[in-house]
């Protein structure tokens, strides 16, 4: 049992069920500031989310958050982290599923589980260049279609890859 999780039996049960069901795929769990965060192998993403949705009632995907771990400190870890923020109502319980992705790796699209992930994954693709295999329509969503690069990557210069064209 994680420290502090005993005060939240419902969330503790979810965590235990997750660890039992996906033994070996749960890499690390953390409970901090009343928030449960579970790091899993990225191959098990779809089954874990489907399990949490159908059997544990986490019926809403609040957000997908991408982190760029680019930099000298993060050399040993993978380039990106993806955080799937799930929500359960009416119980108002939250759980965060974390996976690590490298620059040349694709992630399973979770549109088949949460339809709302469609545009969210497009946003992650647009801003970070993370590919989602199985996504029905993986296009840019914010930037223009012929835009070069992925702006929220830490090695992307703020003013863009090219200097602005000068006025004629």
């Amino acid at each position, binding site marked *: 049992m994680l420290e502090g999780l005993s005060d939240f039996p419902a969330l503790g049960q979810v965590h235990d069920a997750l660890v039992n069901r996906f033994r070996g795929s749960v890499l690390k769990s953390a409970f901090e500031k009343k928030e449960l965060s579970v790091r899993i192998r990225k191959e098990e993403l779809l089954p874990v989310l489907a399990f949490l949705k159908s059997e544990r009632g986490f019926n809403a995907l609040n957000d997908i958050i991408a982190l760029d771990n680019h930099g000298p400190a993060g050399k040993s870890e993978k380039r990106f982290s993806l955080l799937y923020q799930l929500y359960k109502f009416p119980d108002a319980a939250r759980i965060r599923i974390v996976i690590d992705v490298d620059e040349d790796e694709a992630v399973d699209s979770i549109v088949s589980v949460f339809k709302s992930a469609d545009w969210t994954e497009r946003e992650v693709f647009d801003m970070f260049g993370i590919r989602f295999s199985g996504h029905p329509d993986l296009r840019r969503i914010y*930037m223009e279609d012929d835009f070069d*690069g992925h702006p929220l990557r830490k090695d992307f210069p*703020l003013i*863009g890859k090219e200097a602005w064209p000068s006025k004629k």
Partner: protein
Amino acid sequence: MSDEIDNYPFFLTKADRFITWAQKNSLWPLGSGLACCAIEMIATAASRFDIARFGMELFRASPRQADLFIVAGTVTNKMAPIVRRLWEQMADPKWVVAMGNCAVGGGPFPTYAVLQGVDRVIPVDVYIAGCPPTPQGLLHGLITLQEKIARSHPTMEIFRPDARRTE
């Protein structure tokens, strides 16, 4: 014959002055706003500042019915082709006001996503600085535009269609 004319009031003026008098006092703005500057533009159109005083109260929903484009707000690179297209759809004669620092030159966004001044895609007649400009600022800009229109020579455009824009 001369008796008949004497019965009617008339005055003499130059064609340019008469045409520009009509044009500057019935500017129909395009009802478009791109960001927070649009809120100030709406405030300017509302009763307190009331641009109906200048014959500009008729915000049109279609560029084909408008002759004044107030570019109010940040022009992103993605929006720039649409702004250009709206401007092209407006019938001549037409005027453009760049409202606010963003439309003037990118404002506080020197980034990959923002066009560094709307004059990179369409010709601008009057620039209004401010973030956002107050309604008074916008009114000052619009009055400046009226003065510019009054100085123009629309009859020259009969022979040189681009005369107004290249003066």
